[in-house]
């Protein structure tokens, strides 16, 4: 446990440069500055490591970095996505608070690989404590000569800046994030062109999640194979899981990919006394909900969770025990997507409000017999029809809640009250 991103967690001032360096931090960066690494080597190691993007989509990081036109004669950027807004997710906050230098080093390495001399870390606007921590780390790194121009007289330059959000879940979507960084509303861009070609300020840009960047230095220090071996086939390394909801000891755990859900639940102290597990959302609010049964049989890796019928997402495991009203829970999630839709695409702008209003009506005791079909129909019409994945994210919980817990909805519609809470 806690081998990579959380390596310094139990040490004194885990966020300081001193602690970071005492744990081997910046060794890779220093090697790069001495010319002991080539971009190709780094990409190969990353590919070997099996690191997949920790922001939710799980795209292989090595492959992503190889897409950048590193030799194109223009400014290129690396951008870190610390917008962390997916309900249930709170891991990047802790990386920024307790191990900011790993993100800085990871981004610097990315800058070197992709020949991008400038980077921005987009931190959600509410994360002020992490922001100050990260700013502090930047100061240390600059003071130590680890950031800036022609570092240690090499030809390598890397400048890193923070940017703060102002409250919009959609800005976690990478192209909305770029828009936001450019001082606009966070409305996702359509693709193509992809950010690797036309990104920040119109220049080639690579965006990765905080945890993805934070994992890079150790992978290169200890080798891609070492990382791959921690995990399982198709899911290299270890991963942070935020276990929240109805557990005794909610927390972030950095565990090997492939850990069984059962073990993870145990680490979090199990469900509350006197209750039994009812349902699990394994990857954050946008991933399909699972029944207790399906969850208990699952391992925590990309394929394992997919086999169980959901997605690993950002690794945000939301635990619900038998006291949970699924109608209420879905309504709350539907409200979230309704509230956070950027308003750009028709299906999402109009559909999220429709979903929420129907659910709210059911909660108010005014459900109609065909509302379940209606909800299923509406989510199906949003799914796949929007520019970004927020539409899908809004549709998936609706589909999975209704599929797995249909009875509760039927009961609510028929009786005008919750089957669970009465």
């Amino acid at each position, binding site marked *: 446990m806690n081998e990579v991103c959380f390596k310094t967690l139990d040490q004194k001032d885990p966020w300081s440069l001193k602690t970071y360096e005492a744990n081997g931090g910046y060794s890779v960066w220093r090697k790069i500055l001495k010319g002991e690494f080539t971009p190709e080597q780094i990409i190969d190691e990353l590919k070997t490591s099996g690191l997949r993007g920790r922001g939710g989509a799980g795209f292989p990081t090595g492959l992503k970095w190889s897409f950048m036109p590193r030799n194109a004669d223009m400014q290129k950027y690396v951008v870190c996505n610390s917008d962390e807004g997916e309900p249930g997710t709170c891991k990047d906050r802790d990386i920024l608070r307790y191990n900011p230098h790993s993100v800085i080093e990871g981004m610097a390495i990315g800058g070197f690989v992709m020949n991008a001399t400038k980077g921005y870390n987009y931190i959600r606007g509410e994360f002020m404590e992490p922001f100050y921590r990260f700013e502090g780390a930047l100061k240390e790194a600059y003071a130590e000569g680890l950031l800036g121009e022609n570092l240690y007289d090499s030809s390598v330059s890397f400048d890193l800046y923070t940017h703060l959000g102002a409250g*919009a879940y959609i800005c976690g979507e990478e192209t909305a994030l770029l828009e936001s960084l450019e001082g606009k*509303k966070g409305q996702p861009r*359509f693709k*193509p062109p992809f950010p690797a070609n036309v990104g920040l300020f119109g220049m080639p840009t690579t965006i990765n999640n905080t945890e993805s960047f934070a994992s890079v230095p150790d992978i290169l220090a200890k080798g891609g194979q070492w990382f791959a071996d921690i995990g399982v086939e198709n899911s290299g390394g270890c991963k942070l899981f935020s276990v929240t909801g109805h557990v005794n000891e909610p927390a972030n755990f950095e565990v090997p990919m492939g850990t069984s859900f059962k073990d993870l639940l145990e680490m979090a102290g199990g469900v509350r006394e006197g209750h039994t597990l009812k349902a699990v959302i394994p990857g954050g609010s946008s991933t399909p909900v699972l029944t207790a049964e399906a969850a208990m049989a699952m391992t925590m890796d990309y394929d394992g969770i997919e086999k169980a019928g959901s997605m690993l997402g950002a690794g945000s495991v939301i635990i619900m025990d038998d006291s949970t009203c699924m109608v209420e829970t879905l309504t709350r999630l539907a409200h979230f997507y*309704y*509230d*956070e*839709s*950027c*308003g*750009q*695409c*028709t*299906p999402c*702008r*109009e*559909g*999220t*409000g*429709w979903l929420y*209003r*129907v659910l709210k*009506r059911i909660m108010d005791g005014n459900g109609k017999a065909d509302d379940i079909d*209606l909800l299923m*129909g509406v989510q*199906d*019409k949003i799914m*796949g*029809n*929007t*520019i970004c994945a927020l539409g899908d994210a809004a549709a998936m919980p609706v589909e999975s809640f209704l599929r797995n817990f249909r009875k509760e909805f039927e009961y609510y519609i028929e009786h005008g009250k919750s089957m669970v809470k009465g």
Partner: protein
Amino acid sequence: MADIEIEIDGNIINAKAGEMLIAVTDREGISVPRFCYHKKLSIAANCRMCLVDVEGAPKPQPACSTPISDGMKIHTQNDKAKASQKAVMEFLLINHPLDCPICDQGGECELQDVAMDHGSDVSRFTEGKRIVADSDIGALIQTDMTRCIHCTRCVRFGAEVAGIMEMGGTGRGEDMKIEPFLAEGIQSELSGNMIDVCPVGALTSKPFRYELRSWQMNAVSNVARHDLVGSNIYTQTYKGRVKRIVAKDNESVNETWISDRDRFSYEGLSHENRLLVPKIKVEGAWQEVEWNVALDFAVRGLEKNVRQADQLGALSSNTATLEEFYLLQKILRGTGSENIDHRLNVKDIDNTISLESNIKLAGLEGVDHALVIGSNLRLEQPMINHRLRKASLSGASIDVINAMAFDFNYRINSENIIAPNQTALTLASILKSVLKSAHTEVPEYLGNAEVTEIATQLANQLTDSDNSVIILGEHVINNPQALSISNLISEIAQKTNSTILNVSATANSMAAGLAHFVPGKGGLDVNAMLAANLNAYILLDIYPQYDFHHSVQAIEALSNDDTFVISLNSFKDDVVSEYSDVLLPIASFYETSGSHVNVEGKVQSFTAAVNAPSDAKPAWKVLKVLADLLELPGFHYADSMQVTSEIMHKSYKQHVHDENIDITVKRGVNVIWQKSPYAVDVLSRHAVSLQDTKIGQINSASMNKATAKKLEITQGDNYLGVPVSISESVANSCVFVNANHAIRGQS
């Protein structure tokens, strides 16, 4: 780009790699529904209406933003495509009021059309529709934002075409609202195009509001005559009246856009001030009479008063049609007079601009540099300015020499605010710099010009650009060194390989040139005529207090007791009544057939969209009958087209290059006098809604503090009848007068 083959609905189609799918389907006539896509705007891909099925893609793809690649197989009509389109349509309609019968867009609504083809019959949405509060955005555009479908075409139009971002999407999600920031009213001179781009009834024409349904109207192709472009339009008419004007596509002229002036001036047509019946003045009193009586009176008046041919003069406003100019000069020349002129606003005809344009409108987009001299191009020639803006957006550098700072809607490289009496010297200095760096001999007349830093920069820009244009505007017409200025410009253009665009005389003045509506050998120009106390005049749609530079002298001359004046006018005017002996009511814009000649010399003919009101007649017919009554030969025209073709078979070469260049700085205060953008001619002056806009209210004599002091006036005073506005953006010793003598009243 590479030629490739793709398959759409089973048909093999050739296209270019990277083209957007919707461009291909549009070209091939395959219908793909869309709302946010507009061929002249950037791609937004937000409405999701154009979703089609691309084989191999898991999700349906938007045709507007999917670049095609070789071998792509696309289905626009299969179940997957249709299901997506139907889904999007359902979402669009849940919050859209289904009140087509009372909506002004009814019958020409893209949403309505697409809903018919792609919608489902019953909506299952029962949650209550969104209502959006409206804000007043000015006199021209009516909003009904509950109908808005958030396609953002209007927003993109503002940001990309108009060049001032006025509309925006505020709020988020379902609460997103398309609106301007401050409720000051939309300011753009092109704002009406938002009405055209809005696919639904959210933005409609305010003057047209609640009038009619599109299908009740006839649409007639027409050409607007307010400026040098001759924008193509449709006049939409109902029961013999013009009810609305919309843009007509013509890539080489106005693309898809028109100016607000062209769109809304038609309101003036039904103003109460229209002149409706022929009148003659008998012993000082006006009598309404039949046409034949009036014409007879006119002919007898001419016979009686014009004892010598050169005692007759003809003057015309610049909005006349090509044929009208031609017939009137033909009458004059038929009677033996060469006293013909249309340059009423020129102070000194011997010292005025003579410059031929040699660039096409579309070519303007391609320049890499422009030097604009003496023009507030945006408000004077909105569509020409739009082309230049496009050039600017694709990287052209634009320099300006003006007597006052104006609000350009693109980046200006250097804005040189120079007093009018320094203009010639500045150009001389540029020319000298050009010649020096080409190591060419510097002629004597440039001797005094000092090569300043600014001049060197401007000269280098012109020399270093591959494709530069010099644009000369209205403000120089009455510069004391206008002729020198125009000669200097043609020298500079020649030496720097630049093209020239002369926009100093606007409206249909190019037609006057083509019709040779200028004095011939021995003839008098306008000012000379007025000074010569002629015995008789035929005046074509002239309103002396607005049209003449020397308006006081003009009115005086025309009011002579022994001067017989025949006035053909479209509107009533007290001063005209005062000095005229015969008043012949004529057709205005869109009520007559004829031609406009634009700045590139393109002759665009049009037919009448409606009849002139009451007894008013097209001027070309009146002139033809007058000629017949005067028993002049060669007026056997059955329609105006025959006149047009006669003109096209003649050619006049009129410009004589004058080498006179005088660059000495003349002392004194210079007044640049210009009509306000929405008071440029009699029709626009009578268009009430235009007058209610910000642009319509421009009416000021601007000068800086020092000049005001010299003239001993202050803010709040009037200067030349126009309120004084003190502003440091005006060059020294210069008063910039923008006069708006608009005529209020009912239409």
